[in-house]
């Protein structure tokens, strides 16, 4: 063999991110188009049946109200799906060995999976906006707030996906996580309705759903209206992100389940 190898710092992290990006991009019909279509279907069904009859924010057409929520829902579900399914599949097929043998730090490992999950979430979200652009008139009152919420929220779900992917040993376990936790929380977060229309008990319970704050804050970026002050919502979402990230970094450092 010729000369000794020359290592470039952070190139390992970049390669891992690139691989994770390609992993969903190569099957974009399944990973991007399908969720965009699903969101579009929700829009068509709900807007068709409720448009003109329901007005949640004054002066805002129901369909327009619905779009940011649908986009956020897609962002969250896909960010979670990306990291969780990637880790899960790698473990099951055994090819996780290829990312455990190299010398990346656990921080680099974490960052690569997280960024790819956020990227997928945002791409799907953007796709939803593009697809629905022809159907509704959207306002962008506070675009920076919307972006902040999009990033922080997809981050939270991306990290949750990493935790779920590390923990699950079987596809069943991951499906359970997805179907019994992530899905209900995203659907019952005020995407389709205002929590004010719920009975008081359910209104109160909704405040314990972290996704409620994500959707509420994100919508603020569009309509300038929200149930909770956006500052408070963003604080809640961001601190969830940091808390979950520290926990995940600790899990990775301890080698739990990946290097047992």
């Amino acid at each position, binding site marked *: *063999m*010729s000369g*000794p*190898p*020359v*290592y*470039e*710092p952070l*190139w*390992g992290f*970049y*390669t*891992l991110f*690139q*691989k994770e990006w*390609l*992993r969903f991009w*190569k099957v974009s019909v399944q990973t991007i188009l399908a969720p965009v279509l699903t969101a579009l279907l929700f829009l068509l069904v709900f807007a068709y049946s409720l448009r003109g009859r329901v007005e949640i924010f004054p002066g805002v057409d129901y369909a327009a109200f619905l779009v940011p929520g649908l986009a956020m829902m897609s962002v969250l579900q896909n960010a979670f799906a990306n990291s969780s399914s990637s880790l899960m599949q790698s473990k099951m*097929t*055994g*090819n996780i*060995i*290829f*990312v*455990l*043998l*190299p*010398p*990346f*730090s656990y921080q680099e490992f974490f960052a690569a999976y997280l960024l790819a999950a956020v990227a997928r979430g945002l791409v799907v979200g953007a796709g939803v906006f593009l697809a629905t652009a022809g159907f509704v008139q959207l306002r962008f009152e506070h675009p920076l707030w919307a972006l902040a919420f999009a990033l922080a929220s997809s981050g939270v779900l991306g990290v949750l996906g990493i935790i779920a992917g590390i923990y699950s040993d079987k596809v069943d376990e991951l499906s359970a996580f997805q179907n019994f936790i992530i899905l209900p929380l995203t659907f019952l977060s005020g995407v389709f309705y205002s929590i004010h229309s719920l009975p008081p008990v359910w209104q109160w319970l909704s405040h314990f759903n972290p996704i409620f704050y994500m959707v509420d804050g994100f919508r603020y970026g569009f309509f300038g209206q929200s149930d909770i002050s956006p500052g408070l919502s963003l604080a809640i979402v961001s601190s969830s992100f940091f808390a979950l990230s520290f926990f995940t970094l600790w899990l990775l450092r301890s*080698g739990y389940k990946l*290097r*047992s």
Partner: protein
Amino acid sequence: MVPAIQIEQVSKSYGALRALDEVSLTIERGEFFGLLGPNGAGKTTLINILAGLVRASRGSTRVMGHDVVSQYREARRALGVVPQELVFDPFFTVREALTFQSGYFGLRDNRDWIEEVMHYLDLTVRAETNMRALSGGMKRRVLVAQALVHKPPVIVLDEPTAGVDVELRQALWQFIRRLNRDGHTIVLTTHYLEEAEALCGRIAMLKQGRMVALDTTQNLLRRHLGCYLELRLAPDRLPETLAPLVAQRRVDGYRLALRDYVEVERVIAELRANNIEIQELEVMHPDLEEIFVQIMRDEDRRETIDERGNRTVVREGGHERY
């Protein structure tokens, strides 16, 4: 010179199961080392600990002087691992898989070396083929290539020729030998004792997590038995006096285990005295397989003696001598 691998009192338990029990081993640079043992002996666990895929419960492990946990970066850079299972990423072609692997190790532009490795392993013609579409043999070659992209000084192969056809086995042996000649330290686990005998200079044998033998291949071969005698007799029966020497009763003959070559003469004399004609006689050297079986059997025996008390093994003369 810093040894390639230092394993010190490494133990690994999974709950009540002791997968590895105080294994200590040093492998010097440039060695071609064999790790043998029955299934469940702990060979793969030991390799996984070396590679950082599993954390030892106790003890320390170093690759080229770097601790595999506290100095994982340097340790992993120095190690290439060819896993036992034919794992692959179904999204990529051969070239992509190798390029990504290089990238993971921090090697930005490794194109020339990747082409060279593919050429040595006869993969160039399939460089743009998706991993899914490759035969088992080709997948195995890609696994070897993946272990080499970062030019590690130490290469570990976990059963590299299991289930592989004769042609590929010979090609892999040749290739691995060449790597060793170029200065790489090779650690091989295998079930094919013929392979260990042909390739390895030194061998360790594991059984149920403990090391039960550690010696050069030559010494191991010389250790236990004198020779074997393969006999075909007419009439096909053996005198009583020779019965204790029987190692195996064949369909049309006997295999005797002799402690010494001198005993060959005694056997022939006995047969003549009993008017038994020798139709065929062959003197055979013990191969590693027999030594291995013998050592494993001896271990069994030593353990049974102590089963009343704790599960300890009587060692012949202290911890160094096997």
